[in-house]
């Protein structure tokens, strides 16, 4: 579907798209940064950048990919600029404890902690696949990897989660 050409129609369309995608953009940013405040800032900055470049968006179908790319770059830019300190993952988990809420089922909470502990290289493609719903080809394009590399990382991510949560069997690869 092509986007409206110009003017107020395009602005309204763009605003609607951003509003629809904003929760997913926030969640993606959250799982990149593992920090709620950073995620909020990243998304805000990303949407501002997207607004300034809105004329470069050509089709509605590419909007999600485009916005995710902006979020990813903004997170990378922030990380580079601020040299965000590396923290112990358990600290992160404890800091996030208000939202790793008691109201969540125990297994969801355990899974969330386990995902937090995944290396970035495993966590990011997993989030793009399971949360955002991208195909492995789209993920490869997003991350600048081969499809084979993406498949390997996804497999290893799941293997690690199975092991952490005690779901693995004797036949699971190390």
């Amino acid at each position: 579907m092509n986007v409206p050409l110009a003017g107020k129609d395009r602005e309204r369309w763009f605003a609607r798209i951003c509003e629809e995608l904003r929760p997913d953009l926030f969640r993606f940013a959250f799982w990149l940064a593992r920090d709620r405040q950073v995620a909020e800032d990243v998304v805000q900055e990303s949407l501002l950048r997207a607004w300034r470049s809105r004329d470069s968006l050509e089709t509605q179908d590419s909007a999600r990919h485009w916005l995710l790319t902006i979020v990813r770059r903004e997170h990378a830019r922030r990380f580079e600029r601020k040299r965000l300190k590396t923290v112990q993952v358990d600290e992160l988990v404890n800091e996030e404890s208000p939202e790793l809420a008691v109201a969540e089922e125990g297994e969801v909470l355990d899974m969330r902690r386990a995902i937090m502990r995944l290396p970035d290289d495993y966590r990011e493609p997993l989030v793009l696949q399971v949360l955002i719903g991208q195909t492995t080809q789209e993920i490869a394009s997003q991350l600048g990897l081969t499809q084979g590399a993406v498949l390997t990382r996804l497999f290893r991510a799941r293997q690690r989660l199975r092991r952490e949560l005690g779901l693995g069997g004797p036949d699971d690869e190390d």
Partner: protein
Amino acid sequence: MNCLEFRRAAGADPGHLTPEVTAHRDACPACAQYLRDLLIMDATIRKALQVPVSATAVSTSTRPSWAVAPRQRWLALAASLVAGVLVGSVLWIGGPRASLAREVVEHARQEPQSFAATHADPVIVDRVLRAGGIRLRPGAVDVTYASSCPFRGRVVPHLVVRTEHGPVTVLVLREESLTRPIRVREGEFRGSLVPAGPGSIAIFGDTRSDLSEITARLETAVEWIELPGAGQ
């Protein structure tokens, strides 16, 4: 395909199986169970990834105006803005300046949630100000809302400041130069566009408010700095 190859393929993408993978699943009960376990785990992964998107994540204190649903109306003042019509008691200077004043009012009308905010994150305020090429003298005003908003093709700081008379909206319009102040009145809503630095500042609030003091404070509080990226 052997079981190891199946588990690697299924482990990478359990929701999308090739015909070869499907055939192995149908022929191997152990691998079929492995896949079932993976799909159950993926359902848990999906739930776990759906972290709550709190009110601050789609923060009404930071959301650009284009993201605001026009139906949101939270306060009586906002309702009066919606109901206001540009007739009767409106004092406008004719021509382009009337258009500017009208657009400023319209912009505030689109962000009624800005009046409901009680606290703005200082980090976000700082970012909004820097993006607009300004600083505020420390302690000069109490900012309860800050957003970088598209306005006339540019991005401008939109602030709400707390005063003893209620919230006052401020738009910093670097690119809109004025030679003299313009007074604005529309129903219960009034304010001014005042020349400031290279451009102007729009200041408006409830008509019961005395805006003279906050206007004077803002005129001295705003310090103009270089826009980010300028000179590069």
